[in-house]
C-alpha cells in the first residue's frame, strides 16, 4: 500500500513580514494594536548599522495568553533556585513554592563543596493559611526558618515573598535579621512579590541586589590560578555549566564562581577576587556585574557559549583580555583540538538541515544565542523574540541612556553602590581598557539580538499565543523554539517544537560537545517522519477504501 504523501508545507513565495504584522495587529482593539505595534518590529538597518527601536518590558495585556512568569519566578526560580546550599523558603501560600520546585532542570554537583549540601530537591514553604493572612505571617516565617535550621543545618537561608505577603505587610527583612542574629548563619530576604514589575525580569534584578548586598564580598580568600573569572548568567540547564567548566579547565582558566549554575553560596561570597566577569545571559545578571565593577573594580565582558563558533570566539575574548601569550596559545590549542569533532558532525548533519527555518521565542538571551547554533546548521531564523527582555537586549546597550523608566520598573530598587574603600582594585587601567577596545574587545558591551538578525526578519517581544499561531499557520517553520507552555500547542500544528528553557529531556547544548548534541537533536526533529502519518491512508486517499470495498 502506498504511504500517504508528505503533507504540503506552505512555502511562502515571498516572505512578507509587513503583511504578517498587519494581520497580527488587525485582531486587536485599536489601543492594544498600538501597543503591540511597538513590540512587533521588522528588522532593518540604518545607515550606520543601527536597528529600529522596540518597546519591550511593558505590561502584558490582560487576557492575552502569553509566556511570562512573575517577579517571584525570576528571583527564586531563576537566579537563586540553582544554588544548592542555600535553603530557599517561599513565604506564602503553597502553590508558588510548589510550582517552582525543581522544574527548571538545573543540574548541580554537590560533591564539589565539602559539606555536600544540596537542597535543590527540596521545596520549603510557610504554606500560609487564613490565620496568617488575617493576623500576619511573621511568626510562622520565623518558625519555618528555625525548623529549616534545626533539620538541615544549612550555611544560609533565603526567604522569598509571594504576592499576599506584601499586601498583608509582613516585614520579612526584620524577621531575617533577627533570625540571622539568633542562628549565627546568613539569613536574608527578597521582597519579590509576583505583582512587581512586568515579568520575571523584576525578580532577576531583586535577586541580583540581594545576593550582592548580603553575600558577595564576604570572603576574601585568594586562589591560585592566573586567569580567574566568574561565569554570570549561566544556569546549568541540562549540564551546560559542566561542559563550559570542562573547557575552562582545559584552557587553564580558573572559575571562581558561577551565578548560578552549579553554584554554592561560598563561591558567591568570594566572587570579588576574580579578575573578570563573563556574562552569558545579560538580562538576568548584568546588575551584579555592574555593581561588582563599581565596588571592586572587576570589569565584565559579554560572552556566549552557545554555538561552537561562539564558544571559540568567547574563549579568544577571554584570552585577549588577559593578554597573556601562554593563555592565547592554550586557547588556540584547545579550539584546534575540539573543532574537528564539531566539524565532522556539522558535515554529516548539515545536508539535512540546510535551508530549514526556525523561530525562537524564549527568555532574555536564548532567543539570541541559539541563532548561532541554527546558523551553524545552515538554518535561517525567520522570527525571534524575548519573553522578558529590555531594549538593551534587543538593540544593544548603546540605547541604555534613552530607555524611559516606567512606573513598573521604577519600583524596583537601584542600589547605590560605591567603590569599596579597601577592596576596590581596578583590574585594568583606563588606558588598557581603551587599548583593548581599539583591538576590538569592548568592556561592558552587549550589542543585542537585532543587529545579528537578518534584515526583514520579524522581532516580536512578549509574543502572544494568537500571534504565534498566526506565524505558524502562515510560515510553517521547520522548528519552533520556546517553553513548555507553547510546546504542545505548536506540536499539535504539526511543527516540531524544541524547549529552550528546560531543553526537553536533553542537553548540554553549550560549548563544543553541547553544539554536537544540539545538531543531532535538531536533525532528529526537523527530519522526523511522524508528521506525514497524521492522516491515515484512507483519509488521504478515499479512493483506496473504495477500492477495497469493491474487491
Amino acid at each position, binding site marked *: 500500500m502506498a504511504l500517504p504523501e508528505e503533507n504540503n508545507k506552505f512555502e511562502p513565495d515571498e516572505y512578507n513580514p509587513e503583511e504578517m504584522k498587519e494581520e497580527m495587529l488587525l485582531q486587536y482593539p485599536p489601543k492594544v494594536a498600538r501597543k503591540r505595534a511597538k513590540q512587533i518590529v521588522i528588522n532593518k538597518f540604518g545607515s550606520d548599522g543601527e536597528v529600529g527601536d522596540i518597546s519591550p518590558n511593558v505590561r502584558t495585556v490582560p487576557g492575552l495568553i502569553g509566556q511570562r512568569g512573575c517577579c517571584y519566578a525570576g528571583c527564586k526560580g531563576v537566579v537563586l533556585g540553582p544554588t544548592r546550599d542555600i535553603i530557599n523558603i517561599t513565604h506564602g501560600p503553597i502553590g508558588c513554592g510548589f*510550582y517552582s520546585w525543581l*522544574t527548571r532542570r538545573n543540574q548541580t554537583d554537590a560533591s564539589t563543596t565539602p559539606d555536600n549540601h544540596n537542597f535543590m530537591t527540596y521545596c520549603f*514553604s510557610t504554606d500560609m493559611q487564613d490565620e496568617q493572612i488575617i493576623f500576619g505571617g511573621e511568626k510562622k516565617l520565623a518558625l519555618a526558618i528555625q525548623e529549616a535550621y534545626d533539620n538541615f543545618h544549612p550555611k544560609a537561608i533565603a526567604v522569598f515573598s509571594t504576592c499576599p505577603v506584601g499586601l498583608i505587610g509582613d516585614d520579612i527583612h526584620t524577621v531575617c535579621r533577627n533570625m540571622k542574629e539568633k542562628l549565627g548563619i546568613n539569613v536574608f530576604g527578597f521582597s519579590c512579590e509576583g505583582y512587581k514589575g512586568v515579568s520575571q525580569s523584576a525578580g532577576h534584578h531583586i535577586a541580583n541586589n540581594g545576593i550582592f548586598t548580603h553575600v558577595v564580598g564576604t570572603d576574601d580568600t585568594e586562589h591560585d590560578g592566573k586567569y580567574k573569572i566568574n561565569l554570570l548568567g549561566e544556569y546549568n540547564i541540562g549540564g551546560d555549566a559542566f561542559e563550559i567548566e570542562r573547557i575552562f579547565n582545559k584552557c587553564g582558566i580558573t572559575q571562581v564562581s558561577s551565578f548560578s549554575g552549579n553554584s554554592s553560596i561560598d563561591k558567591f561570597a568570594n566572587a570579588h577576587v576574580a579578575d573578570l566577569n563573563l556574562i552569558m545571559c545579560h538580562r538576568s545578571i548584568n546588575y551584579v556585574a555592574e555593581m561588582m565593577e563599581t565596588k571592586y573594580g572587576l570589569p565584565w565582558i559579554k560572552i556566549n557559549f552557545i554555538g561552537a563558533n561562539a564558544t571559540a570566539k568567547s574563549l579568544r575574548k577571554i584570552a585577549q583580555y588577559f593578554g597573556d601569550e601562554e593563555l592565547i596559545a592554550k586557547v588556540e590549542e584547545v579550539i584546534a583540538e575540539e573543532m574537528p569533532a564539531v566539524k565532522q558532525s556539522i558535515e554529516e548533519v548539515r545536508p539535512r538541515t540546510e535551508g530549514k527555518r526556525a523561530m525562537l521565542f524564549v527568555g532574555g538571551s536564548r532567543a539570541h544565542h541559539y541563532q548561532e547554533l541554527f546558523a551553524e546548521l545552515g538554518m535561517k531564523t525567520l522570527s525571534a523574540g524575548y519573553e522578558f527582555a529590555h531594549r538593551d537586549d534587543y538593540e544593544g546597550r548603546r540605547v541604555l541612556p534613552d530607555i524611559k523608566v516606567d512606573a513598573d520598573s521604577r519600583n524596583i530598587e537601584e542600589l547605590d553602590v560605591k567603590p569599596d574603600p579597601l577592596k576596590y582594585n581596578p583590574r585594568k587601567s583606563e588606558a588598557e581598557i581603551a587599548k583593548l577596545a581599539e583591538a576590538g574587545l569592548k568592556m561592558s558591551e552587549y550589542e543585542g539580538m537585532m543587529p545579528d538578525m537578518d534584515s526583514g526578519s520579524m522581532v516580536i517581544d512578549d509574543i502572544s499565543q494568537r500571534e504565534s499561531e498566526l506565524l505558524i499557520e502562515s510560515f510553517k517553520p521547520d522548528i519552533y523554539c520556546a517553553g513548555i507552555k507553547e510546546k504542545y500547542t505548536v506540536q499539535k500544528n504539526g511543527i516540531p517544537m524544541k524547549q529552550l528553557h528546560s531543553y526537553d529531556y536533553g542537553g548540554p547544548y553549550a560549548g563544543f560537545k553541547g553544539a554536537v548534541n544540539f545538531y543531532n537533536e535538531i536533525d532528529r526533529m526537523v527530519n522526523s517522519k511522524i508528521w506525514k502519518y497524521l492522516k491515515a491512508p484512507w483519509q488521504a486517499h478515499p479512493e483506496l477504501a473504495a477500492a477495497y470495498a469493491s474487491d
Partner: protein
Amino acid sequence: MSDDYTSTTNACKLCKPIGACLAFKGVEGAVPFLHGSQGCATYMRRYIISHFREPMDIASSSLGEKNAIFGGGANLKQGIKNVTTKYGAKMIGIATTCLTETIGDDVPSIIKQFRDEEKALFESDNSPLLVNVSTPSYGGTHMEGFHDAVKVLVDQIATEYGKDESINLLPGFVSPADIRYLKELLSDFNLEGVVLPDISESLDGPALLDYQKISEGGTPLSKIRSMGKARATIEFGRTIFGNLTAGKLLDSRFGVKNYSLGMPVGLRESDEFFSVLEEISGCKSPEKHVLERGRLIDSFVDSHKYIFGCKAVVYGEEDLVVGLTSFLAEMGVQPVLCASGGKSKKLNKEITAVTKGLVDLPIVRDGVDFYDIGEEVAELKPDLLIGHSKGYSLAKKYGIPLMRVGFPIHDRIGGQRVLHLGYRGAQALLDDLVNLVIEKKQNDSPVGYSYM
C-alpha cells in the same frame, strides 16, 4: 517523631486555583481565567502541561503593583473581553488567586458591572458564559478548588427545570483515561449520562492537522444546563461526603437523587458503583464488565504469592488515597501509611471504613508533607510507594519502587492515560504493582533469574 512542623517541606498538595482550572478545562469551549498576577497562571499552565503533555491555556488579568493596591476590576474586565474576542470562548471560568482574595476584589459584582457595561457583547449568540469561583489557597488544596469549581459550574449553569432520563456523573479529579472508561460504562448500561467535568479529550487529544484555538472535548454546556432534570447523580469521593457538593446542590435545588460513592478504585468500591449503575439503569451489568471483574479476581489469586506481606505507603489526594487503600487491602498488600496533604478531617474515618477486617491498620496522616512522610517511611520500611511523581526522591533515597498514579506525573510519559477506575482500572493497577514488586526482587537478586 514530631507531628507538628509548622512549615511545609516538599508539599503533598497543590494550590486551590489549579484544581479549579482543571475542572473548567473539562467544559466544552471553556477557557480558565485566573484573576491575579500572571505568575500563577504561568506556573499552573506549566504544571498541568507537564503532566498531560497537552496544550493548556489559562488566561490572566495580569495584575501589577498598582492594581494590587487599588483593585483589579479594570484588568479583569479587559481580560474577559480579550478572551471573548480573541479565543471565541463559550465559557470563561474565572478563579481568584491569593492576591485578589487578599485585596478582597469582589468578582461577582465586577462581572455584573461588566455585563452592564458591555451589553453588546452579551447580546450576541456567541457571548460567553461567565462562571466564577473563589479559590484562596490559604484555605484548602487543589482538590477543594476542583470540587468548588464543579459546584459553581452546576450552581451557575444548571438552570433548566424538568425531568429527563439522563444521569449525572461527577467523578472528581480523575484521568482522561478514567473518564473515557466511565463514558463507555454509561453507554454499556444504556444510560444517557453527563460526565462533569470531562477532560477525556480536552486534556488528551489527538495530533491534528489543523489548529484549534480551544481544544475539542469537554462537557457540553447544553448538558450542564439540564443537569437539574436528571434522574440521579452519582458523585465520587468519600472525603467530600456530607459537604455541600455539586451533587448535593442538584439534590436540594432540583430534587435529583444523589448517590455518594467512594472513588471506584479496586474491587469493592467498584462493586458499589456497579450496583448503583444496575439500580439506576435497571439493567444487569453487561457481560463484558462481568468478565473483567472475573479476571480481576482471578489475578488477585495469581498474584498473591508475589505480594503477600508486602507493605505499601500510599499518598496523594485524599479520595484517591482512600480508593487505593481499599484496593491494596483487598488484594493482600498491607497499607502501612495513608498520607495526604489535604485536610478534610475525614481521611481517618474513611480509611478505617475501607480497611475493615485488616489485622494491622495503617497509620493515617492528613495535612502532611513529604518531610513527614519521609520520617514515617524511614521507620516503616515499606516495600512500595504508591502516589504521584513527587514521592520520587523518597523512593530513590530508600531504594523503594514507586508506582506512579494520580497527579502530577511528570517524570514518566502517559500520566493522562493511567486508568485507575473500575474493574479494568484495578486490573491495570494490579499488573503494574505486582510487576514492580517482582522486578525489584529480580533486580535485587545477584543470580539473574528470568523465571519468577
